């Protein structure tokens, strides 16, 4: 991309580069929900002990239904929220409890792409100003250099000709085009990591594929790692390298996409896969297997394994009492279930 005009701000201690861009170690993010003036507060356990790692240049998809905590996980990973417990490492450096000021270097290296094309970019700014902002804030380059960087970014996201798009306001663009601008904005500071939080779920089906393909392309061209948060297992299958399944604040299964989806080991993953139809006329003649009940509340989740009330193979005395640990049952493929094998 553009030559980085200002040197990367390295962490204070020079370290040998770790193979993982992001590492989470039993990360927790709990929110205090007040119950009224004198009744104290109770915790909402949005992220309840998640351990995973994202390697350089890879896309990890975190798939979960709404209320699973995946959005909170994303926000915590790029430190828009401060973890309540556990450790968060970026490039080997512990950023769990650093202050905003100390994190300015992270604000270059880690970027995000929001979900809603109608509010993902500032409607009051023209495109070139939207894209220029990150450079201006971090004092990168002079006017001419910034202009060049903006044009290059627009080309990277296939908004051609770039001069045409640079002067437009967001309301003049379609949803897909706006998301492309959001992606271009994320690229401006040469990040090594991008959080893509449901970047296509509010776009038309036909536009989704082109955006996801673009993200993949960007990943391969620039070697950026992605954390792709979604509820859509099918897109996760085609656009990520590894996949993690989240349920009620915890990771229940994690591994390479082919492995997890080819041989799902956790009952929830199996149920999730069974629930999604591919276009097949035979579907209407059969009844699809669902799961009874509803996803649990994060304020008072079930004891032990959070999935046990809905699990078809749950064992009383074990699954409702003891928290399952993540075990590596296949190469690089981990499952948190007492009964999986």
């Amino acid at each position, binding site marked *: 991309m553009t030559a980085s005009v200002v040197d990367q701000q390295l962490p204070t201690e020079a370290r040998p580069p770790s193979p993982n861009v992001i590492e989470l170690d039993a990360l927790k993010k709990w929110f205090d929900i007040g119950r009224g003036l004198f009744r104290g507060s109770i915790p909402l356990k949005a992220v309840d002990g998640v351990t995973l790692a994202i390697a350089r240049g890879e896309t990890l998809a975190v798939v979960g239904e709404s209320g699973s905590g995946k959005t909170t996980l994303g926000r915590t990973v790029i430190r828009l929220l401060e973890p309540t417990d556990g450790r968060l490492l970026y490039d080997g450096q512990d950023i769990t409890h650093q202050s905003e000021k100390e994190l300015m270097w992270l604000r270059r290296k880690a970027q995000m792409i929001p979900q809603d094309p109608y509010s993902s970019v500032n409607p009051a700014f023209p495109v070139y100003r939207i894209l220029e902002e990150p450079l201006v804030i971090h004092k990168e380059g002079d006017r001419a250099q910034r202009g060049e960087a903006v044009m290059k970014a627009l080309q990277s996201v296939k908004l051609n000709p770039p001069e045409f798009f640079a002067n437009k306001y967001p309301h003049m663009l379609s949803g897909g085009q706006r998301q492309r601008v959001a992606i271009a904005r994320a690229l401006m500071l040469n990040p090594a990591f991008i959080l893509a939080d449901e970047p296509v779920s509010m776009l038309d089906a036909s536009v989704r*594929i082109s955006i996801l393909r673009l993200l993949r392309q960007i990943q391969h061209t620039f070697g950026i790692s992605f954390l792709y948060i979604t509820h859509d297992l099918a897109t996760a299958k*085609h656009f990520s390298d590894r996949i993690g399944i989240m349920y009620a604040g915890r990771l229940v299964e994690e591994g390479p996409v082919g492995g997890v989806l080819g041989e799902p080991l956790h009952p929830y993953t199996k149920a999730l896969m069974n629930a999604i*139809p591919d276009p097949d006329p035979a579907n209407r003649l059969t009844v699809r297997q669902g799961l009874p009940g509803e*996803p649990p509340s994060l304020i008072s989740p079930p004891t032990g394994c959070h999935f046990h009330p809905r699990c078809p193979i749950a064992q009383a005395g074990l699954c409702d009492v003891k928290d399952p640990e993540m075990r590596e049952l296949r190469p690089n493929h981990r499952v948190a279930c007492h009964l999986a094998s």
Partner: protein
Amino acid sequence: MPLPVLDVKNLVLWYRTRKGPVHAVDDISFALEAGQTIALVGESGSGKTSTANSILRLLPKNVLRYEGKVVFDGQDVMEFDDEEFRKVVRWRGISMVFQGAMNALNPTTRVGSQVAEPLIVHYDIDRREAADQAIEALGKVGLSGDIARRYPHELSGGMKQRVVIAMSLILKPKVVILDEPTSALDVMTQTNIINLLKDLKNAEHLSYIFITHDLGLASELADLVGIVYAGELVEVGPAEGVFVRPKHPYTGKLLASVPRLRSEAAPDFIPGVPPDLTDPPPGCRFHLRCPVSFEKCGWSAPEFIEQVKLLQSSVETKDKVPAIEAMKAKDTQTLLIKPVANGTVAEFAQRLTSFIAQDQETYRFLKSVESVQPKAKVVEVKLHEAMPPPLIGGDWRASCWLLEAGGS
């Protein structure tokens, strides 16, 4: 051959806007037998919801054209006046689950009363009787009777959607229109609701018009599939046919763009955007994005110029185009091209012709060229006549010129 319970013929709905008339529904026809489900599939803005609203005569205030025949149970209900339509058809014969209905429940009224309301509006019925029937309807959708006393905010998403379905069934209609009934729900809840709809279809002998953009979901219920594009029905036929060997190129592209969980095939995307309904393209409405469009499909001179400009502006393709200084549309089928002063006009015409011959498979719009005539200082390019393709075929038909010669 049993009489269809619902036979829609040539339904048209246009409405007025500042920018011009919007062709929301443009000549749509299909027939539904008792117990059958038709899925109306299309992108957002394609006109599928407008079609449903037109059948139920839920019209916007600025209607310009509203025509066609809707034969329900043997009678053309378009002939009914508003009062009769309301009494006989709306909700009693045909009911609807609206998009996002679960969020539109009245937050200040108990759920049971809301389910009972259509009964009270339509029949002069005792309140207790209505309450009993409401509880019965809730039972049919898998909710216990005490749910009737709850308020909507006390229920989960899935439960609210069941309530809405119960409301749609309370007057025992024959046809239920489902407009994206699971769009705001989680995958698991979605499965449960679809299973419920499958059960109800059989238990109550219902016909569904299932509107969705999700082909996977459509296949869960559809016996018949109708593909809607830009206000038109471009293909309609049995699920076994349409899902497996679609006749219309758009259907093919649509199916290819679905990321499949059980196949390794990478999903493909459809380039371009759906057309503006106030100004639909001449000829076939899909031709601008079609991978197999050819000369009959309806390229107009302005569109041709637009496509050339797109090629010129993209870094990867601009060198392929012969050097052009200016282009102008003389009329809808003819354009004039002025070459950059680099040789004679005849030479340019040659280069243009060979470009067209070479690259027409990739850039389909080039196929629409009928002739290239060098004139004094410009080259006159004539395009083929454009005509919208009719629906070709019987029970399984698609509107594509490629089907004319019996091809598919």
